[in-house]
């Protein structure tokens, strides 16, 4: 073990960690949007929407993320869409995450008592306001722990996008260790960085939960 190797590589690793973080965050944001849309569509969009949502969820939950990533990366050019690796990666993370998030929200919505929307209905609320003002805010509160969990899983899963050549933390670690022949030190450092990021996320989740509980 030579710690000077880690010190030398640290600027590159931290730079790559920043890429990991923002790719993951974009993936999570996209996943949130997709998840909410799919969840609401399945609950209130009739049978066709429910079935389409069901197919989406079972595909993106049932196929490994690595395969999804490669499919998006190699298949889209075939139909004439040329996607940069970064875009393909964010899309894959977002689509996969959206499937899980829609199921998280579905569970959370079931936990909101029926009387909550009934009170709004009896007051004459438009359907859209019942969703945006009453149901989704409560579902969000209930699902914060599961969403933080999902964020952490996604951040770790983002190491898979190294295979399409995005210079995130895992890919950068591979590149450095291939040139200095010090894989142990470099991967150890990468592992510690992942751990630090996820610990920060978990802490953030606890703070959000505590904040929402006061309300």
């Amino acid at each position: 073990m030579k710690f000077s190797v880690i010190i030398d590589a640290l600027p590159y690793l931290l730079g790559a960690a920043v890429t990991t973080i923002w790719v993951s965050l974009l993936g999570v944001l996209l996943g949130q949007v997709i998840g909410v849309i799919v969840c609401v569509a399945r609950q209130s969009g009739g049978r066709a929407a429910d079935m389409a949502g069901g197919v989406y969820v079972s595909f993106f939950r049932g196929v490994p993320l690595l395969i999804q990533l490669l499919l998006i990366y190699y298949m889209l050019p075939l139909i004439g869409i040329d996607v940069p690796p970064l875009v393909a990666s964010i899309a894959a993370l977002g689509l996969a995450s959206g499937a899980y998030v829609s199921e998280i929200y579905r569970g959370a919505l079931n936990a909101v008592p029926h009387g909550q929307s009934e009170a709004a209905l009896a007051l004459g609320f438009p359907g859209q306001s019942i969703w945006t003002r009453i149901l989704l805010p409560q579902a969000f509160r209930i699902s914060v722990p599961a969403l933080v969990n999902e964020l952490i899983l996604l951040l770790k899963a983002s190491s898979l996008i190294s295979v399409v050549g995005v210079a995130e933390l895992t890919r950068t670690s591979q590149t450095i260790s291939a040139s200095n022949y010090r894989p142990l030190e470099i991967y150890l450092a990468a592992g510690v960085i992942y751990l630090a990021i996820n610990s920060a996320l978990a802490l953030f989740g606890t703070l959000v939960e505590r904040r929402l509980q006061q309300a």
Partner: protein
Amino acid sequence: MTAVSQTATPPRATVQGDAVPMVSIRGVGKSFGTNEVLRDIDLTVNKSEVVCLIGPSGSGKSTLLRCINFLEVYDRGEIRIEGKLVGYSDETPRRRLSNRDLRSLRRNVGMVFQQFNLWPHMTALENVAEALVQVRGMDKAAAAAHARRMLDRVGLAAKADAYPARLSGGQQQRVAIARVIAMEPHLMLFDEPTSALDPELVGEVLQVMRDLAADGMTMVVVTHEMGFAANVADKVAFLDRGRIAAFGTPREVFHESTEPRVQQFLQTYHERNSF
């Protein structure tokens, strides 16, 4: 569902003023599968009247109440509020209306629930102001000011910024009442408003309801509070197995009715509440 008997001449808008009852229920029936929960219900509620629905549990009183604002769908007969048919298009054969079509009716009919159903992620003030913004289209500042006056009316101005979890059951129910009266409804429906409360908190809610009645609010109240029904109601309807078994003034129902089921019900009530 069986065919619907339509009255030949439904009340028209040409009938003037007080002649149109606030609520007119004619031949209403409802079934869950083969179980008939409401049978041939006739009931009229005039403007500024307080009508209490009493009876044993499972008698259909809550179901009937929930049919009035169409939270529950009735299959047969018709319910009219201020002459307007509830839940269906006024044509033959009638077509069931969607929640969207029901909005204009529901904004004039307030409902208070047994479980309060306050929104836990909003303060008392926000609970009251929300419908003013979402349904009446008021701007936020005006809605908040109006909501504050309503909370004051139910004696909770000091709790405006408290979340429901920090309020007692009685206070929560008073906020729920403020939320409804803020919309200036023509009619208020109460579904066992004190049944979920600790006994010592019942009085404060009943007092708010008494004040509303004194102000001329038209109210239909499903309740187990016989004292409230006896003292405040103009009319009492006793339901049993989906039918109105007795109807009249509190005196007529409580003291003069010879209907054995009413007497048995009151007997049980007295025994349970004596010690």
